[in-house]
């Protein structure tokens, strides 16, 4: 078994952290989508029905991309979608903060304290940086990178 460089360790750690974060975020919301829909409504961007649609689909998307980040055949697509989701969350929290909304994040299901916007945004920026680092690393090491893509062996 070959030795891993410190960069490879960092990428592995970042990949596991991102995957675990998404799985822990998804599971409570899959179990109680109504509570998550109420949190989404608090952002005052979509109505009740829109929030129910988002609460139905988004947790499953988080679950799939969280697990997919560990599967070589689909990890690039999952990584890109995770980065886009994190950008979306940063934008939503910034928007809610600027509008002075007093909401609960809903990020990890129900029972959360009112949102600490600075912490939420910094947390997501940190995760986004980690995700970008993983994507760059995967781009430079393309073996078994994606579905049905012929990559010459190095």
């Amino acid at each position, binding site marked *: 078994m070959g030795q891993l460089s410190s960069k490879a360790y960092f990428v592995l750690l970042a990949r596991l952290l991102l995957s675990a974060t998404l799985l822990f975020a998804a599971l409570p919301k899959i179990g109680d989508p109504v509570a998550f829909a109420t949190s989404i409504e608090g952002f005052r961007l979509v109505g009740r029905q829109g929030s129910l649609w988002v609460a139905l689909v988004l947790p*499953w998307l988080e679950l799939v991309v969280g697990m997919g980040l560990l599967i070589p055949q689909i990890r690039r*697509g999952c990584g890109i979608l995770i980065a886009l989701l994190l950008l979306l969350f940063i934008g939503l929290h910034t928007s809610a903060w600027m509008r002075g909304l007093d909401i609960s994040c809903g990020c990890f299901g129900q029972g959360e304290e009112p949102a600490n916007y600075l912490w939420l945004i910094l947390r997501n920026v940190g995760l986004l940086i980690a995700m970008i680092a993983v994507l760059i690393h995967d781009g430079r090491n393309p073996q078994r990178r994606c579905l049905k893509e012929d990559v010459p062996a190095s």
Partner: protein
Amino acid sequence: MAIFREFFLILLLSAVGAAFSLYHGWAPLPWVEPKLAAGEIRLVDAQALDVIWLDTRPVDAFESGHIPDALFFDEADWDSSLMGLMGAWLSEPRPIVVYCGSENCGTSQRVAGRLRGALPDAEIYSLKGGWDAWAN
């Protein structure tokens, strides 16, 4: 094009998961409009307003936990409870939201109806889902 195959697979798996939630009844059907009875207000809308919360549950339930700043309202002791409410409402007129224990407890709708007669100038609602909606 491989990346589009990945996106397609990811979205397909997410859609299958969402269908699984619907099939098992974990999630309500999003295309069915939730029913809101006349005079009811949803928690998210009430929270967006500066309201007077009125707790009509039994006193022991109130003492073990209630919405912050909620007033206890004993329907059996109507006159003194109403006086307490009027004191709060006259000092700062705001919408009044009455709640009881759960979605189907009925007390909040009954008390809200009586209060509309006693305070015709006030904006009075009953909270959909009651205390359970808040606690969740």
